[in-house]
């Protein structure tokens, strides 16, 4: 139940997938909303605090997820040869975009050498800071990469439903519980 098989995913993969999905959609919505807030809004400080904290947790989760994934076998991909190729490219892109969005977000908040406070539990130190225009440039990358990530995620979900509804494959079901 823990480990992946050729038939399906283990529990860690399934749980991390849905936690990531929830965090990504939530962070996108929160990020969009909080950047539209006025200075006198009660959430003006709190929104970014949640956004940064959840973002850092998601980064840790994603690194753990990638490490776990590489230590495991991958279930048989569904669909035609071309669909399988597209899926592979899409999945790699999703991971790359997640990392780009999270790293660029980290570079905004640490651009002046400031640590990131994660839920007032611990702090992530700044590693790269003081580059010319760092916060603004990282901000552009953060926003556009996040938009592409959300669009790609919609395609990812649509593809899963296509496998489930049109092709009658258990692609969607095996991301809900481990199949043997």
């Amino acid at each position: 139940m823990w480990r992946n098989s050729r038939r399906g995913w283990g529990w860690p993969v399934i749980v991390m997938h849905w936690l990531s999905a929830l965090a990504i959609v939530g962070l996108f919505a929160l990020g969009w909303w909080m950047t539209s807030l006025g200075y006198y809004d009660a959430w003006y400080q709190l929104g970014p605090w949640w956004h940064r904290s959840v973002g850092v947790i998601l980064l840790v989760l994603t690194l753990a997820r990638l490490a776990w994934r590489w230590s495991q076998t991958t279930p048989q991909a569904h669909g035609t040869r071309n669909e399988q190729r597209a899926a592979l490219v899409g999945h790699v892109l999703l991971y790359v975009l997640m990392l780009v969005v999270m790293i660029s977000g980290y570079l905004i908040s640490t651009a002046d050498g400031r640590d990131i406070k994660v839920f007032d539990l611990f702090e992530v130190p700044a590693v790269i800071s003081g580059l010319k225009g760092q916060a603004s440039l990282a901000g552009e990358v953060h926003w556009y990469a996040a938009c592409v990530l959300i669009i790609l995620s919609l395609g990812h979900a649509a593809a899963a439903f296509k496998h489930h509804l049109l092709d009658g494959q258990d692609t969607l079901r095996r991301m809900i519980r481990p199949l043997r």
Partner: protein
Amino acid sequence: MNKTSFLGKSLVAGLMAASLPLMAGQAQASDYTIDTDGQHAFIQFKISHLGYSYVLGQFKEFSGDFSYDQGKPEDAKVSVEVDVDSLDSAHAERDKHIKSADFLDVSQYPTATFTSTGFESTGDGSGKLKGDLTLHGQTQPVTLDVDHIGGGEDPWGGYRQGFEGTTTLKLADYGIDTSKLGPNAATVDLYLVIEGIRQ
């Protein structure tokens, strides 16, 4: 060796003699370049935070020059070009917001310029420096209260003049909308210290 050095000396002496009447005939205004290499020049700003306190910051990169004659300060000319993107209020997320399209819109208007149009001496090295300030793509006349701090030879073979100046800008004049930051943030105070090295 001796011959050349003698020749050199007389050449210099001759040139100096020839230029003497010329120098005496006109005002001895000298051109100065703002010392940004040694960074003996500062452009700082101060703006209200909620009406309870202030946010301070500075523009780290700028360049400029001025011409100045202590005997005729009213002939002084100044021009400064500021890299708005170099704004630093010691908090990157705030800097990013200030530089965004919400306020300074740096990607659209990367430079601010000041060109003097006149100087009104009020004596004692003080005066009112008038000029045009272009900020956020809009040009407005401004007046800076200027004080001559001092001037003379520096310890490294150069010659310097130093000034400080203050002014207050109404940000709406430059199309910068700070209404969301509260009524006290409508204006920003600028404080400049400008040291120039004679060219």
